[in-house]
């Protein structure tokens, strides 16, 4: 198994952290992982993204050109990364900030009202957590919800430790969004 992902949004939405949390959780579950942020010549307020690879074997390149899965947080990122998803891949998109239904043939699009659920959980800043929660509910072989929660303390920066519970709540909320129809 080798799954290549891209997390993309605008600077400040926590897409780099979302990818890092998944990488740490998968690593602690015994997977090979890599994480690399896009550090091109990005504009302030422009798109930010990171590539994450989760695998059972050694990872050749950490850079992802044709992702199996993308988590899209805003409209510019949808335009940039929607068309490069592999056929049969998954596209999670943040319906709170993306009005149009993505039109990507051969790709399953999964709506996640990330900002709305994040605000309900206590802060719109946890939209990244909602998305990661939804991601692992749909693709459980990447990492379990409990692995993500366990990875939070070592991933969230020290000065935001008081926000751990908030992040956990947002993770669960995204997870339940996808999981609920099955478990009920």
């Amino acid at each position, binding site marked *: 198994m080798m799954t290549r992902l891209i997390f993309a949004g605008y600077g400040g939405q926590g897409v780099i952290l979302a990818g890092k949390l998944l990488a740490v959780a998968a690593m*602690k579950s015994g997977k090979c992982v890599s994480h690399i942020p896009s550090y091109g010549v990005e504009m302030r307020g422009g798109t930010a993204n990171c590539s994450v690879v989760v695998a059972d074997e050694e990872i050749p390149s950490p850079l992802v050109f044709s992702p199996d899965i993308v988590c899209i947080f805003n409209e510019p990122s949808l335009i940039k990364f929607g068309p490069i998803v592999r056929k049969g891949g998954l596209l999670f998109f943040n319906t709170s900030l993306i009005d149009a239904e993505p039109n990507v043939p051969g790709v399953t699009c999964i709506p996640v009202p990330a900002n709305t659920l994040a605000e309900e959980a206590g802060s719109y800043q946890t939209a990244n957590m909602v998305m990661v929660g939804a991601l692992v509910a749909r693709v459980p072989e990447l990492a379990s919800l409990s692995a993500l929660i366990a990875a939070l303390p070592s991933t969230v920066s020290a000065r935001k430790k008081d926000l751990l519970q908030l992040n956990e709540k947002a993770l669960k909320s995204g997870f339940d969004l996808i999981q609920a129809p099955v478990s009920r």
Partner: protein
Amino acid sequence: MTATAEKILMKGNEAIGEAAVIAGCRYFFGYPITPQNEVPAYMAMRLPQVGGTFLQAESELAAINMVFGAAAAGARAMTSSSSPGISLKQEGISYLSGAELPAVVVNMMRGGPGLGNIAGSQGDYFQSTRGGGHGDYRHIVLAPASVQELADLTLLAFDLADQYRIVVLVLGDGYLGQMSEPLVLPQPSGKQFDKSGWALTGAKVREQHLVYSLLLSPEDALEKLNLRLQEKYRVIEKNETRHETYNTEDAEYLLVGFGMCARILRGAVVSLARAGVKAGLFRPITLWPFPYRELAAAARGRKKILVVEMNAGQMVEDVRLAVADSSPVDFYGRMGGMIPEVEAIVERVRGYVE
């Protein structure tokens, strides 16, 4: 590996910094440049915690000459930069080499020539292995291919530098520096090196030591130094040449690459095996000394050798020297910060089969 060894997810550049601290490096002098800024940033945070000194110099020239000063005083000192900054440090590296001072220099290569860009590249192979500075000197070049190796080889670099009184260059690239991977922090080697015979530690109760590279008499001094250096370089070539092979037994095609390219080639070897094509990987870990003999042996009897680099073809010249006429050598490269993809390499090799 110790029982307490725990995997952490760490960025390549930060792994270099922590490994240097573990190696006992207490002096870091640098000047900022992307994509290696996390090295000085990490050292600025970490060195004060262990009683060390981090200093952001006014220029690259100042930084490398501060390394000269600290090394002359017997300290473990390092600097790091990326391609354009390393070009500026070449004068200092030549002086360090002439004065036989141990020092660790890190180059996280970026796209060039000129100011280029901030993406990863391998365009500095010639500069690293042929001496970007003036004079008949060599320095050891280590080429890590993972975050774990960035740490392990940085640790090794300090020991090799002290053992041979030589500059050791850790040659990575912007992608390796920016990526995060699982890492088990290395243990200090515990090796001790006696510097009392040459280090400038105060000459009150002993004869004075001199550290310099100006030797005006060709006959009595400078040729003698050069002969001694060459003798040392031969010893290093004999003892410190490092490489790794993967799947080379009964491989029909041999893929050769260093650093980031080597891990992509390893992925290609795996893909090719699934398609029934027998390919193997030869990865030089030391670029100087280059594993000529080992590569010559590994290349014998192969249908084709494919060298892959993130440049226009630099290491391929050393591969041709090693392989001579025993097998045909092909080259595939990407430039300007582009990175080869596994699929492109697989396609290339499958083209040989048809």
